[in-house]
């Protein structure tokens, strides 16, 4: 039976007609009681289960997913991983995630195809270059890599960029983060699932959490479509559905759910080997390993739970792409989709205890929580195991809205929501 993946097992299975592979995780029936239950089988939920088992030795754990594992935003995102934020609290969080990503393939024994091809954020005017310089300074002071590029250096990174001197958004310079990149989204979910399962975690798909079990004012478990499951501690990692579950637990969150969409073109020969974002258009794109051009942009501006996406934003994103890469006008788009993202007023996540004792939050990642999956899982596991914050998650507690100590990345790094 082939459990560990390696070049040797690949060769061996090739010779044996691929008959020895095992399913990457089990499909167990839910047990009546666990030490810890995590709601939501996206990247954050699965990573939480893995780190509970790995870092804290808590292995009697279940991840409860209403549909299929990784079918939420984790399987719908454009996979960009970076840490070019403004505030020290944010850089500490996202750089921790990036550092964990750098060793993740080996750690999970699963090829997550992390490609550190760099992110190029292009500025178009003297004023934007000042903002760019400020971002680069902040990133360097916070201890992560960042460089300010001249127009020639920027064009060198992405030669097909629009060189027309009369362009609406000319290339005036750029911020470059070389350690940033992209990874295979499904592989991150599957890799964590397989590794968590290997440590004894039950991954229960097709099981929706419908309510909370509250005893003596404390969360004692969950009601699900497959019965009651009791738990010593409960974690919530359901992204766009956080408010729906919060309502069942009797509290409200500073979250609005929106659709965020993306598109891919037909596959073409290699022509773009970094991730490019324009400050002016808000459109960003890169080329997938299969050759498709993957394109994304801002939120649909209508609060929504429809995983669909409205046409006006498609037009904005695609016109942005044509401004950036005029030659991409020849591309045919193959697919369009949307995810249901959880947007917080300061564009920073919510990690910490919820108003219901025994229930802990990991949500509010909005348009940017793929890059943070290893950190989000690590920090929620720490909270659930110890009942206390890790130093990195402390600033992201819900209490920041009452104290006024927001981590305003909407203003700080111009996250477009």
């Amino acid at each position, binding site marked *: 039976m082939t459990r560990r993946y390696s070049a040797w097992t690949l060769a061996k299975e090739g010779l044996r007609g691929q008959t020895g592979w095992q399913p990457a995780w089990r499909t167990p029936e839910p047990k009546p009681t666990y030490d810890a239950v995590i709601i939501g089988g996206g990247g954050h939920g699965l990573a939480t289960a893995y780190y509970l088992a790995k870092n804290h030795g808590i292995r009697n754990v279940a991840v409860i997913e209403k549909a299929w594992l990784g079918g939420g935003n984790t399987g719908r995102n454009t996979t960009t991983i970076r840490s070019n934020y403004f505030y020290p609290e944010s850089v500490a969080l996202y750089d921790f995630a990036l550092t964990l990503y750098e060793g993740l393939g080996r750690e999970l024994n699963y090829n997550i195809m992390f490609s550190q091809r760099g992110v190029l954020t292009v500025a178009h005017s003297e004023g934007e270059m000042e903002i760019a310089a400020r971002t680069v300074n902040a990133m360097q002071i916070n201890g992560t890599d960042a460089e300010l590029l001249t127009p020639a250096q920027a064009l060198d990174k992405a030669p097909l960029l629009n060189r027309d001197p009369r362009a609406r958004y000319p290339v005036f310079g750029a911020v470059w983060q070389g350690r940033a990149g992209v990874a295979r989204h499904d592989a991150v979910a599957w890799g964590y699932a397989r590794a968590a399962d290997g440590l004894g975690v039950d991954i229960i798909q097709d099981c929706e959490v419908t309510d909370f079990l509250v005893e003596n004012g404390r969360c004692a478990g969950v009601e699900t479509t497959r019965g009651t499951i009791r738990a010593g501690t409960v974690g919530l990692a359901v992204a766009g559905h956080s*408010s*729906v579950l919060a309502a069942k637990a009797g509290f409200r969150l*500073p*979250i609005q*759910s929106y659709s965020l969409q993306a598109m891919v073109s037909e596959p073409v020969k290699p022509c773009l080997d970094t991730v490019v974002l324009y400050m002016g258009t808000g459109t960003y794109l890169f080329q997938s390993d299969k050759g498709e051009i993957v394109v994304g942009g801002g939120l649909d501006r*209508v609060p929504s*739970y429809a995983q669909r996406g409205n046409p*006006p934003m498609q037009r904005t994103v695609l016109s942005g792409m044509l401004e950036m890469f005029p030659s991409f006008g020849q591309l045919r788009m193959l697919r369009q989709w949307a995810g249901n993202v959880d947007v917080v007023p300061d564009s920073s996540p919510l990690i910490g205890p919820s108003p219901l004792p025994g229930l802990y939050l990991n949500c509010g990642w909005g348009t940017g929580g793929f890059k943070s999956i290893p950190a989000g899982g690590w920090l929620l596991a720490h909270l659930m195991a110890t009942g206390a914050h890790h130093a990195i998650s402390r600033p992201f507690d819900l209490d920041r809205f*009452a*104290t006024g100590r927001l981590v305003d990345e909407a203003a700080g790094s111009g996250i477009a929501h």
Partner: protein
Amino acid sequence: MQLFPCPFCGPRDETEFQFATEAGKALPEPAGDVSADRWAAYLYLKDNPKGVTREVWLHSTCGEFFLMERDTVTHAVIGSRAMGGEA
């Protein structure tokens, strides 16, 4: 492209509108007695319902705020009307 009904201008393109806030929020008063938690709840907490919702929208073209009831899953608009002093 979806059409939203402005109570003043009739059905217009969704791109002409801006979402402002959920309806039904009341300014906590008197200011001196409002705790930080109540103030934070007023400013930031949302119902964010999955399904029918009542919201305040701005029709940027005519500059009027109005109330709209709609479904956040199907995007069907149930109705809209001018604000009558309340939100």
